[in-house]
């Protein structure tokens, strides 16, 4: 923010300048053509007297010069009395009066004539000078600019006047223009004083914040002369502007010793100490400065030191001395107000500044301070009122908008604050304070909006804030709002940027993990979560990172690891909440995965765990768990429970269910139950509108139903029906060796043993039961026990399951009866009796 108190540098400059301006002008006489009237005659006489007055002045005879000037003034007055519109008389009057320092007379007498002859330089020059000397700058500057524009060597001094004025009002550019013009126009004999002009140029460049140009000017001022305090002070200011504070301080520390009687180095040095928090040294310099003279600047400095020493009452005393020495001095008034407020004397501060405003007509800074004092006192309405005034006074400056922004910020009126800072930025694009506080006000509003479900608006605010303030905290806020509004890709973009910024923490990595996870990239998410965990030592924060990693692991199929992580969520409450919200879901998911592998027991264990944990408010999840449980029941053969469970969990239809989920689940249960016809009916209905990912499984169920139908028909001896179903199944999957094999069984039963044998022989390596059936054929049809034993031995060697005991019995019996030994040549029946029963 722009400081309220003008820098003392400016104060001293201004004070020094005022002293300069008080000095006598180097006015020069001018030639005029001879007059014709009485008045003209007197004017002519007056001019002659004026010439001799100047000559006397040039000789150094001040007394004679003064007398002659008075004489000339008298003549011009008489002439002007007779011819009030005489330009010559007025011009002469002006020159004489100015020489006598009677500027008031010049202003009074010349103004009407100049009004009639606004382009006359002979009038403009003395009148402008008089106005300037009378500090009537508003009137002086346009007149002097007019004179300066004519570029006449005689009027050289106006360039200097104007430059002085522009320096006073901190208009560096105009000051530079005038000073450079002065150097061009000045006669050679005045070149000896150029160093002063260069010093002023240096100051002008400092105002322009052009450190290089300022340095060049001060170095030119210093060149070829003994070390000059002013030039050196200028160089110290340049160093400070360049950020070389230590060098600047070193230079000033040298200057205060070398020029102990010069005030400015002490003041500057004290200010540097204050800024660095070195109050004791600042105090030393301020006290030394005071010894040089009880000036307003010295008291101002000491007051500031006292404030820094937390002695606001003493500060107030110093500031009041400033006002004693220079009544109405703006900075003094502001400082008193500030000192009062520092003593919590808010009302007094307000009253003091209010009266200052009333008496002083109100400068911008005073109004600004008055408003801010009101704000700090909690009187926001008045603060806004006063600061509105500042905006009215200087609508093109950021100042008033910034102040209003601060007022609205203090009361949480974010809309207005945002508008204010926006206006400040319009007035001064790139204003750092405006950018910073606009971003912060937007962040405040975004938080409020997010709290009232206006996430989209919050995101918009934070996007703007992040554009203004590319910082980690702002990126985190924007990322979080995007995450909460499920804009994962956008969140990822922002957060991937954020983690490259300096000052990034575990938290941004964590958010990035969630953004990637939400965007469906669990691998990258896991990397971010891991990085988050590594970026902190806090157990709570590590627990949060671990919970995130668990969610990524689930998506990567590492469900067991994830369940482990989520079960031991760790000390953080947030992590525990993440676990709580996800563990049931993850367990249901794993249960479904177990079901896909046919492991009903494991599925039940996970679903039991879900029941213990509860699903909280997630009704859909509860229904999904119930659905998974129903499917598990079917897998266990508890079909009635399965059917009832499916119905319950899908009424009314939850969001996760497809429109045909019910039909498909019921069809599957009926299939598992062996109820082929009703299952097929449901399947056919479900197939009318297949959902994505379903057609393949539907085809599988169709095939499974045909196979089941064939098996049931075969078992009941209905070979025709069995054959029909198998052929239909084979039509869909011609390469299915199991179906081919079973079809051969039907063929055998129908008397086509030749083709059956061929099929079984072909399939023996891939379908073990084919060996069993070859053995059956050998023993039952062809009565070839040796072949049967061989075939069954092959069957048993394949390690095939359920029928092994039966087949081993058959094989052993045939071996016992016919003495067919095993490959090893051991005949089990040939030994003596064992004691086994």
């Amino acid at each position, binding site marked *: 923010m722009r400081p309220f108190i003008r820098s003392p540098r400016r104060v001293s400059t201004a004070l020094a300048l005022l002293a300069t301006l008080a000095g006598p002008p180097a006015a020069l006489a001018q030639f005029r053509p001879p007059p014709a009237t009485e008045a003209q005659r007197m004017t002519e006489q007056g001019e002659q007297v004026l010439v001799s007055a100047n000559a006397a002045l040039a000789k150094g005879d001040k007394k004679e010069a003064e007398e002659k000037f008075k004489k000339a003034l008298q003549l011009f007055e008489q002439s002007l009395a007779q011819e009030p519109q005489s330009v010559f008389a007025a011009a002469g009057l002006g020159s004489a009066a100015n020489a006598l320092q009677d500027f008031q007379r010049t202003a009074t007498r010349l103004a009407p004539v100049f009004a009639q002859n606004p382009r006359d330089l002979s009038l403009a020059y003395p009148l402008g000078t008089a106005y300037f000397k009378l500090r009537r700058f508003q009137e002086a500057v346009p007149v002097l600019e007019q004179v300066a524009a004519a570029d006449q060597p005689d009027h050289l001094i106006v360039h200097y006047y104007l430059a002085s004025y522009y320096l006073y009002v901190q208009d560096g550019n105009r000051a530079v223009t005038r000073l450079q013009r002065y150097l061009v126009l000045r006669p050679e004999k005045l070149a000896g004083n150029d160093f002063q002009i260069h010093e002023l140029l240096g100051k002008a460049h400092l105002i322009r914040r052009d450190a290089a140009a300022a340095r060049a000017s001060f170095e030119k001022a210093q060149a070829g002369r003994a070390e000059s305090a002013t030039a050196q002070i200028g160089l110290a200011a340049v160093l400070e502007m360049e950020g070389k504070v230590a060098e600047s301080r070193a230079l000033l520390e040298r200057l205060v010793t070398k020029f102990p009687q010069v005030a400015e180095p002490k003041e500057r040095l004290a200010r540097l100490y204050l800024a660095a928090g070195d109050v004791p040294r600042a105090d030393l310099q301020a006290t030394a400065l005071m010894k040089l003279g009880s000036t307003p600047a010295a008291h101002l400095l000491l007051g500031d030191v006292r404030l820094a020493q937390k002695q606001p009452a003493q500060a107030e005393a110093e500031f009041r001395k400033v006002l004693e020495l220079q009544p109405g001095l703006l900075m003094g008034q502001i400082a008193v107000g500030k000192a009062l407020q520092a003593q919590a004397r808010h009302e007094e501060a307000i009253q003091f500044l209010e009266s200052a405003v009333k008496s002083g007509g109100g400068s911008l800074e005073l109004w600004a301070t008055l408003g801010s004092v009101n704000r700090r006192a909690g009187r926001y309405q008045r603060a806004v009122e006063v600061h509105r005034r500042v905006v009215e006074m200087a609508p093109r400056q950021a100042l008033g908008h910034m102040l209003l922004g601060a007022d609205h910020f203090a009361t949480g009126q974010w809309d207005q604050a945002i508008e204010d800072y926006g206006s400040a930025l319009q007035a001064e694009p790139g204003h750092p304070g405006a950018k910073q506080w606009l971003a912060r006000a937007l962040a405040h509003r975004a938080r409020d909006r997010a709290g009232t479900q206006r996430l989209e608006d919050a995101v918009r605010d934070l996007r703007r804030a992040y554009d203004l303030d590319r910082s980690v905290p702002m990126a985190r806020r924007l990322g979080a709002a995007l995450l909460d509004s499920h804009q994962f890709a956008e969140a990822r973009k922002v957060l991937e940027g954020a983690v490259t910024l300096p000052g990034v923490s575990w938290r941004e990595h964590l958010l990035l993990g969630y953004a990637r996870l939400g965007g469906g990239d669990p691998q990258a998410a896991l990397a971010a979560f891991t990085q988050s965990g590594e970026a902190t030592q806090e157990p709570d924060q590590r627990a949060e990172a671990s919970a995130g990693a668990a*969610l990524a692991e689930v998506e990567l199929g590492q469900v067991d690891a994830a369940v482990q992580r989520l079960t031991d969520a760790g000390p953080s409450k947030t992590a525990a909440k993440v676990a709580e919200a996800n563990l049931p879901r993850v367990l249901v998911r794993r249960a*479904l995965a177990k079901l896909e592998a046919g492991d009903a027991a494991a599925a039940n264990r996970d679903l039991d765990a879900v029941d213990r944990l509860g699903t909280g408010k997630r009704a859909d999840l509860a229904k*999904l768990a119930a659905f998974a449980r129903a499917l598990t029941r079917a897998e266990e053969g508890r079909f009635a429970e399965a059917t009832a469970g499916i119905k319950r969990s899908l009424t009314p239809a939850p969001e996760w269910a497809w429109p045909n989920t019910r039909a498909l689940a019921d069809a599957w249960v009926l299939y598992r139950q062996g109820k082929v016809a009703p299952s097929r009916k449901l399947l056919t209905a479900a197939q009318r509108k297949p959902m994505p990912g379903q057609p393949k499984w539907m085809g599988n169920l169709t095939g499974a139903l045909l196979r089941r139908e064939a098996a049931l028909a075969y078992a009941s001896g209905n070979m025709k029906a069995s054959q029909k179903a198998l052929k239909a199944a084979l039509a869909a999957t011609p390469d299915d060796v199991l179906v081919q094999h079973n079809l051969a069984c039907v063929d055998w039963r129908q008397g086509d043993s030749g083709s059956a044998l061929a099929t079984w022989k072909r399939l023996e390596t891939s379908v073990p039961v084919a060996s069993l059936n070859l053995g059956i054929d050998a023993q039952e049809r062809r009565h070839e026990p040796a072949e049967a034993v061989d075939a069954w031995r092959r069957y048993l060697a394949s390690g095939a399951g359920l029928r092994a005991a039966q087949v081993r019995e058959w094989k052993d019996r045939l071996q*016992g009866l016919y003495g067919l030994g095993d490959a090893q040549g051991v005949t089990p029946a040939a030994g003596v009796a064992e004691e086994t029963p």
Partner: protein
Amino acid sequence: MKTPSLVARGSLLLAAALFAVSVASPASAAPKKATLGVFLATTLSDGQERFQYAEALAQKLEASLGRPVGAKSFGRYEDFSKAVGEGQIDFAVVDGWAAVQLGARAEAVAYAPRAGETQQRWAIISLQKGTVKDLAGKRMALVKGAGSSDPKFVSHVVLGGDLDAQKHFKLVPVPNVESAVKMLEAKGAEAALVPVAHVPRDMRVLFKSTRVPGAVLVDLKGGGDALSQSLSSVGAVAPFDAFTRIQGREFEDFRKLVTQGPPRRQPVFADTPDLRVETPVLVQSESLGPALPPFTDDLAVSAEQPDD
């Protein structure tokens, strides 16, 4: 007990007989005496052992049933089946194969297990090396039952339907397992069929059958339930363990196997794996996605205020 109970008698005669019984008994309320038959020609190899077992069991049953129980031990199937046929026996402990031969009137109630086994294997034994196949046309000693159905037990049960005993062997009937072994020793037969437990050490086992029910308790007078209920308090009677009730149709299956033989072996289907559910088919996958925590706290702002 002389009470005739042949079913062929007329109801009048039956009524008269019942009257006679009540007259014969001094206390009309006194329960009727029951008779336990024991025929274990192949399970126990010693007549004395069979007798002692019958006596001991009868005592236990008497206590358990609360009525007098007499015991009769039979050495030969003919005697036993005759007594049964005459209605002398109320219930009996018999070899499993013999229980089958008694037909439907014998209700199998419980197994009499030995050494924890309700079943036993049978062995074809010989003095010579060789195989069953080599014994074609040779004599095999076989404990005699009803005669006509004896070969069925051998063919259907012992040989599992894979060999016809009557065609393959010359069957030599003997009264019990001791005599079967003796017959073999005396070269009256080339082979003998005995339970594995009774195979002498010096004999060769040419073949062992699968497990076959051993001794069973059968009811012969339709009092199966009462008998069954009394068993729990009977306990073990040496050399058997406590009776174990026969579950379901287990014994009926055995009876069927003996009488009808094993079913013809038919080709079997290869089992196709059951179709499992696939989650994405039934559940829309996005609803299984992670539940992200709220991030509202990350929107927090500092309390810092602008000042000038």
